[in-house]
């Protein structure tokens, strides 16, 4: 029953048809929210008492890091769907989401490093959050490389799904263990985003940019997955009719 239901609503054809309809709304809403949030954050939000103006990187950095992890989580759900119910679309989505995840993780790492220079005086710290984000980045690359190394694409889909699931267990473990490790020699001296104590005038634009980046990334995901679905199913009749 469940299997039949899932397969009916997860055909690549209906996915492409649906996403094509909602794409314009997503991209317009996402980009305008992003512009609004960033403009607010960059020009109108007050200066931070401690960090000065450098904290304005937060409006790009925090959304990136959030989606770096959310995208991986999304991929893990897809991987489960692919392995348990053999949903082809799920594998296509993993493959198209991975480069976006890698890109946004890179932006998160990069913005964090640049932010670190004026704030901590160093661009790198071995604390739990940064280390696990770096590992996340490496895992995205590993997933992409693994998928690229097979000529039989169905095999590649399955192995990639297994790796994604192993990775989703690994990320929190690394985070916890680094935390545990670093509390041994020094208490965590730097907290990257003290989100609980943040002022509302900074929180609103941050919230808006998270939503904006989220919708923009969904739109991007729709584009990449569409091109990938066409590539994989180029011999199917519905693709011919669609193009």
């Amino acid at each position, binding site marked *: 029953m469940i299997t039949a239901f899932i397969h009916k609503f997860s055909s690549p054809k209906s996915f492409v048809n649906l996403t094509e309809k909602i794409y314009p709304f997503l991209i317009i809403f996402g980009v305008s929210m992003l512009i609004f949030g960033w403009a607010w954050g960059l020009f109108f939000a007050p200066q931070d008492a401690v960090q000065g103006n450098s904290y304005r990187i937060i409006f790009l950095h925090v959304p990136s890091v959030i989606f770096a992890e959310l995208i991986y989580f999304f991929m893990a759900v897809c991987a489960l769907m692919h392995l348990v119910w053999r949903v082809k679309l799920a594998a296509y989505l993993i493959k198209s989401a991975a480069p976006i995840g890698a890109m946004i993780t890179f932006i998160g790492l990069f913005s964090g490093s640049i932010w670190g220079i004026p704030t901590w005086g160093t661009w790198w710290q071995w604390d739990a959050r940064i280390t696990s984000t770096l590992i996340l980045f490496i895992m995205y690359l590993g997933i992409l490389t*693994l998928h690229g190394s097979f000529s039989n694409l169905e095999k590649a889909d399955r192995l990639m799904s297994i790796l994604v699931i192993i990775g989703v267990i690994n990320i929190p473990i*690394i985070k916890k*263990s680094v935390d545990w490790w670093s509390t041994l020699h020094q208490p965590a001296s730097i907290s990257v985003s003290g989100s609980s104590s943040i002022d509302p005038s900074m929180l609103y634009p941050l919230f808006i940019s998270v939503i904006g980046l989220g919708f923009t990334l969904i739109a991007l995901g729709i584009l990449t997955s569409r091109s990938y679905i066409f590539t994989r199913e180029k011999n199917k009749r519905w693709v011919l009719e669609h193009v």
Partner: protein
Amino acid sequence: MLRLIKAESFKLSKKLKSWLGPLLIMVLVLIAFPLSIDISQYDLDKFYFSIIVVSLLMTAFVATEGMFEEDFEDGSLEQEFLIEKDFYKVVFSKILVYVAFIGIPIAFIGALFSFANGVAIVSFAKILLLLSLSNLLLFNLFAFGNALSINKGAMLGVLTALPLALPVIILLGRAIRSIQFDEGFTAIIALMTGIGLIISAIMPIIISAVLKTHID
């Protein structure tokens, strides 16, 4: 199961470079690292354990390289599939044999060298136990990486399995500190034994699924 363990040990004993190579690398790294630091300036026993961790990682990688590759290439895996219908026993006994024949000797060498570098004699057994357990974990994880890329050699496997080894390294570092300061060692060893048991039970299931996908 006994048949598989016997066959694997026989095969490994005939492949000189597969078991002697990692041992030699372990010895070489342990000799070479102290030479590359100015001993008079630094306190060697402070650095020594990080050297052991690095060489453990390297040797575990070298030792597991091509673990399943040969059996995949020459078709032995297909034959095992026809007999067992599953790879769990094959994988389990292979990892067991590799840990017994390569992992534990490496741990012994590591413990011996740290003993030679001024660690108290009571710690020798502790370090041996600790390194053997870490090798059990590392071999399981790298075996997974190797299984993923049996069609393309080991490099890809390293890339995908190295992040998995990170918690093990952190745990190892923590345990070594506990030996140095002589506190909380039993708790950490108990934790590592628990993780080791769980991993060696679960990893073969995952690896077996990977291998099944490969012969498909």
